[in-house]
């Protein structure tokens, strides 16, 4: 739990802060081309952050940070026969290694989503008010966020949080052949989990859209 959560905090904070900055910067800049004023930027940004970019980017970061970590760990355990050693002593490697990470990943995904959205909104507010002179109150408005955004995002968090350790551990367990094998497994884990996050995100968003959530 600690290694999935805390150690990702700085990383998530850093990337999400830059994401928040850039989104507000771009949104304001683009909006200035066509709109007379920037009042919708804040609410729309917060709404999008909560529903779309928050879960997705946090999951992408978790996939690189944690997915790669799990794959590296399980992969090196696989190539040094530790997994076999577990099997022969009747310890189920999935139960022993994956399940705790699975649970931790889901919980931390939700926590980091909240954290990430807060950081991004803080960074976005900074640039929105300082650079584009949007009123703080106008910017920090939840009028662009609905309860269904939150539910959809939470649902995404759970799904992403579950998918990442499974994919990562799977490629870790399939590692063969020394350090190069571990490297390969880690690469595969990152690519698979990144892609799966995007794919799942698309599916969930589409379904949510279709049902009007």
């Amino acid at each position, binding site marked *: 739990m600690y290694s999935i959560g805390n150690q990702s905090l*700085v*990383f998530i904070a*850093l*990337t999400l802060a*830059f*994401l928040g*900055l*850039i*989104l507000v*910067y*771009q949104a304001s*800049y*683009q909006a200035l081309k066509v709109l007379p004023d920037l009042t919708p930027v804040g609410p*729309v940004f917060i709404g*999008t952050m909560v*529903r*779309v970019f928050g879960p*997705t980017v946090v999951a*992408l*970061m978790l996939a*690189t*940070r944690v997915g*790669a*970590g799990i*794959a*590296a*760990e399980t*992969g*090196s355990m696989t*190539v*040094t026969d530790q997994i076999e050693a577990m099997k022969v002593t009747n310890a189920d490697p999935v139960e022993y290694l994956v399940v705790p990470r699975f649970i931790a990943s889901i919980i931390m995904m939700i926590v980091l989503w909240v954290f990430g959205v807060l950081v991004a909104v803080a960074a976005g507010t900074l640039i929105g008010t300082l650079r584009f002179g949007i009123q703080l109150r106008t910017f920090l408005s939840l009028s662009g966020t609905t309860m269904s955004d939150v539910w959809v995002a939470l649902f995404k968090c759970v799904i992403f949080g579950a998918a990442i350790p499974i994919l990562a551990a799977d490629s870790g367990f399939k590692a063969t052949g*020394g*350090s*190069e*094998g*571990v*490297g*390969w*497994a*880690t*690469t595969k884990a*990152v*690519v698979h989990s*990144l*892609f799966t996050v*995007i*794919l799942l*995100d*698309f599916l969930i*968003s*589409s379904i949510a*859209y*279709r049902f*009007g959530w």
Partner: protein
Amino acid sequence: MSKPVETDSFLGNFGRTFITAFQTVGAMTLLQLRIFRSLLAIKNFDYDESVTQLFKIGVRSLPVVIATAAFVGALMVVASGNFVRATGATTLIGWAAGTAVFSEVGPILIGLMFSGRVGANNTAELGTMVVTNQIDALRVLGINPIGYLIVPRFMAMIVMLFFLTAIGDLFALTGGAITCRAVLGIDMRIYWQGILDSNLLSEFIMGLVKAIFFGGAIAIVSCHWGLQVTGGARGVGRAVNDSVVTSAIAIFMVNFFITVLWT
């Protein structure tokens, strides 16, 4: 592998994080300088290695880049779909999706995918070479490992990420178009017209410029961690992990600065 002294204090952790970060950045800058120096000494250029790297880096990552891009475009359309439904402004779809894909989301996600696919693989490959003393063997043979191994990768990543982003943009828009019709039920022509009407050339070119810098950043980060590897299989795994994480941070930071400087 020397373990850092375990300090549980928050400040200690904080300080250590920063010192490590600065060390890493410093080492990467040095690596960058060495790459440029080797670039100037053009006689180090190895044609076969370059073609191999171009192939491995470009052609092999094409499928994953295309797939990612298509879904990213689709995702952007669905995301803007919610606002379109709220406001009824269907013409905005093309503009929103086009701007997002060209200038920000496209380059970033293709870059992230590229760092996962190519950067991580590169770190693993170089790391294994370090662990098995192949780098030392090159040195003994009088070959400069930077010129022979790193420069072709560096160039190949920049060139290939540039072209892959160009291709990816197209597939992202196509994915968006299909989603527009299939999920949102809005005619594709409205979407395409929206893109064409929105004057997105500047965004498109900015995205490609970003791709060049992302390629360079991913190359340096992944080579750095690859050459740093110590401690066998576990070390390689760790290095790959560090490599993708640092690449992601680098991508987001570089992205921000390019956008701000561009506009």
